């Protein structure tokens, strides 16, 4: 299993949280609201493409709609391997950030 980088991790996390409603706008929105920062769509979509390629997320194309200028929505759903990857990322983080190290970081 391949490790996620930070952007991928955030995006995959958002896709997981948004469940049925994960597509470009909502994903970006969600990340911004939760973390206060995000990325242009270009970066977002290259992360999504990567996740898709790794098999962590699956894309479905919805019908085009007029308020999107006649363009369709790409919905993403997390896959079981994606969930596993998120878990792995969390494990890595908890392994790093033990209480001791958090305290030490705050002091420094």
């Amino acid at each position, binding site marked *: 299993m391949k490790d996620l980088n930070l952007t991928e991790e955030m995006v995959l996390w958002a896709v997981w949280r948004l469940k049925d409603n994960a*597509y470009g706008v909502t994903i970006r929105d969600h990340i911004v609201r939760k973390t206060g920062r995000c990325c242009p769509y270009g970066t977002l*979509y290259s992360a999504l493409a990567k996740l898709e390629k790794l098999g962590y997320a699956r894309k479905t194309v919805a019908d085009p709609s*007029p*308020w*999107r200028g006649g363009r*369709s*929505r790409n919905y993403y759903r997390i896959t079981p391997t994606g969930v596993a990857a998120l878990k792995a990322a969390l494990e890595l983080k908890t392994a790093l950030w033990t209480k001791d190290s958090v305290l030490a970081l705050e002091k420094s």
Partner: protein
Amino acid sequence: MDSPASFRPPRLAERLLEATANDGESSAIAGDIAEEFQRRAAEEGAGKARRWYRLFVLQSLPSFLRHFVSWSLTMLKNYLTIALRLMNRHPAFTFINIAGLAAGMACAVLIGLFVVHERSFDRFHEKADRIFRVYADTRDDGGMFRVAWTAPPLAGALREDFPEVEAAARLSPWPREWLLAAGDKSLIEKDILFADASFFSMFSYVFLYGDRETALESPGTVVLTRTVAERFFGTGDPVGRTLTIRDLKRDYRVTGVIEDPPLNSHLRFGLMFSLIGTSQAAGTRWNNNSLFTYIRLRPGVSAGAFEEKLPAFTKRRYGPQFFAETGKRYEDYFDQGAEGPHHGYRLEPLTGIHLNARVTDTLSLKGSASHLKLLAAVAFFVLFIACINFMNLSTARFAHRSREVGLRKVLGSRRGQLIAQFLGESLLLSLTALVLALGVISLVLPAFGRLAQRPLVFADIFAGGFPALLAGIALFVGLAAGSYPAFFLSSFSPQATIKGRFAVRGKGHALLRRGLVLVQFAVSFAVIFGTGVIARQMDLFNNRALGFDRDHVIVINRANMLGASATAFEEDLLARPEILRVSRSESLPGRHFDSTGHLLEGRPATEEQTLMMTYVDERFAGLLGLPLAAGRFFSPEIPTDKTSAVVINEKAAKVLGLSNPIGTRFHKTFGEAQPGEFVTVVGVLKDFHFDSLHREILPMIFRPLAPGNWRLTSVKVRGERLSDTLAFIQKTWSTYTGGQPFTYSFLDQDFGALYESERRAGRIFGIFSALAVLVACLGLYGLISFSAEQRMMEIGIRKILGASTASLTGLLSREVLVLVGIAAAAASAPALFLAQAWLKSFAYRASISPLLFVSTAAVLLLIAFLSVAYRAARTAAQSPVVTLRHE
């Protein structure tokens, strides 16, 4: 959120987004941006949302572009791979396709270079557009003459009478061949001309030493070109040094050196002597045409309007002299209607002299506008055939790829991509052909330059319109050839294209292909036919009975240098068995003859008749084998023959209206003639062609040779061991002249030189027509290969059902042969028309026999059959097992 779109994003940014994000993923992104824009507009107001939209699109642009470019490169790589793989798979086909087009382009460029060079003549002179040569347009009983030689007083009179004339200069254009000496160096120089002082201020030659305005001002001065100056004086400044013309025993002072003149000039000279002070320059007679006259008009003066003032001018100037000489008023004699005698002057632009064939001027290396047109037509046709070929073959090749198109479509290619792919591939081929063509041109250009006798250089390709032309051709051909598959194949649904190669079998396509083949072979027919006509005309030139014997005659130039020892020289020669006859003369057939007015005894002065005139000795007729029509030739036994006898040709007798010319008398106008002296016609020679077959035989008079007129000695020898004979003549010459240079030529070659222009055109035409046919046949071969492959299955089935190889070969080639036959028939009429137009420029024309049509068609059919039959037979001979498995 799912409310209808109520706000419009900024137009420009939206367009930008659409242009860059228009496929797959990007489309979704664009959709996201649009959606977010709508939301923001609803929440924060339209203005803020629009600002955000603009900023956002700008921010995303770089990454969109990177994405776009990287995908394009990937696809390009794929296209290239496919293209190269296909080229590799059919190497012969690819070679035929590219080489054919390259050959066509190379042809067109070579001829284009030649045409551009020919049209560049004399344009290097500043103010060239205002310089004109005045030519004489006259008519008398002998016929019409448009000659470049004009009367000596003309230039001065024009300058005096017309303020429009800014400058005028005269030139004595006969290139003399004289022995020149400076210090201890003596050399024969050929390109010797004489000109007025104003010559160098009118024409833009570059002076290295000396002063352009005054160089030829005084008599006895000469201006040299750099090459000639270095030959005599080395590299220093020779102004003020002395140059001696040995033939005239006169000294000349060098007053200037000019840079070697550009080769694209109608005037070729190595030395320009001052015309001032020569008897020719001092001439005052208006009916003595012997000099070129050039004038430069003031800016803004119309040449046409100026020309219209010339008849009145001629009458004013020539009238009094005419009256004094003939007792007739000018207006009573000249200008009596269209058919009457006429004496006029007209202008031809300096830049047009080189290609103007209507005015006779016997300049060497004269161009020919009609040959140029012919060549340009051939160039166009070869290129045209090559282009058609390229399109035909490309189309055939692309048609094989309907499956690829189908597959690409299934995999998501959009039509635009397919169009770009095919156009690009076709362009790749045509650009390769262009590069190949440039290589070929650089290789053959020197040889072509020698053939055309023009200094053509490769660098010229990068000047003028050539780069644009070449790029234009490559682009046009590439796009045109690619457009069929690009727009036609790409328009079908993937289902249809994958199913089969239906597109190729479409009726429209076959019709187009047949049409193109038809056009190709019609053009080929015309070109082969034209070559045939030129060859026949050359045959006529070479083999027509000229009325004299030109073989094995050695002509010694400057023979008068022998002086008093001439008789001893000739006796020494005639003592050898291989030397048959010797004769002295002023000129010989194929060389220049002067013409002068002659008046019969008892006729009024107005009936003076212009006759070509030359001086010959009594052995002349024998040496050339000229038969007499009446009377006798000059005889050494009759003393009066040396002074008061003349011989004329049949044409002269006819023009003069003499039924029994022997014994009639002309006023004597040569030697030490007193008024009232006459010369008697003692003989009439049968007409012979003393001039090129371009012109009809003119009336001619032969006068007895006096030492002062003697220039040439002709020696008739036996045909074998020619070089020994020549060596002997040269040795004897050296003995008697004290080592004077020996220059000689052969009469048949001199005469042949008159048709140099036709010979060159014929050879160039021949080469390029062969190329045209070759290219057309390459195309045919390619097409038949293609169609044979298409019909593999059919052939296999036919074979199983009992068809023989021969009948199958017939089946495959029949269509093509029928097409070629139709093409030949269709092209006959235009080819005949063109050939007749070309032949019009000759007084003596080859006939065009029906046989020529038949043989041309036969040649064409044979070539076509050979190129088709080989391929067809190979296909037909294949085992049905192989052919049936093919699809």
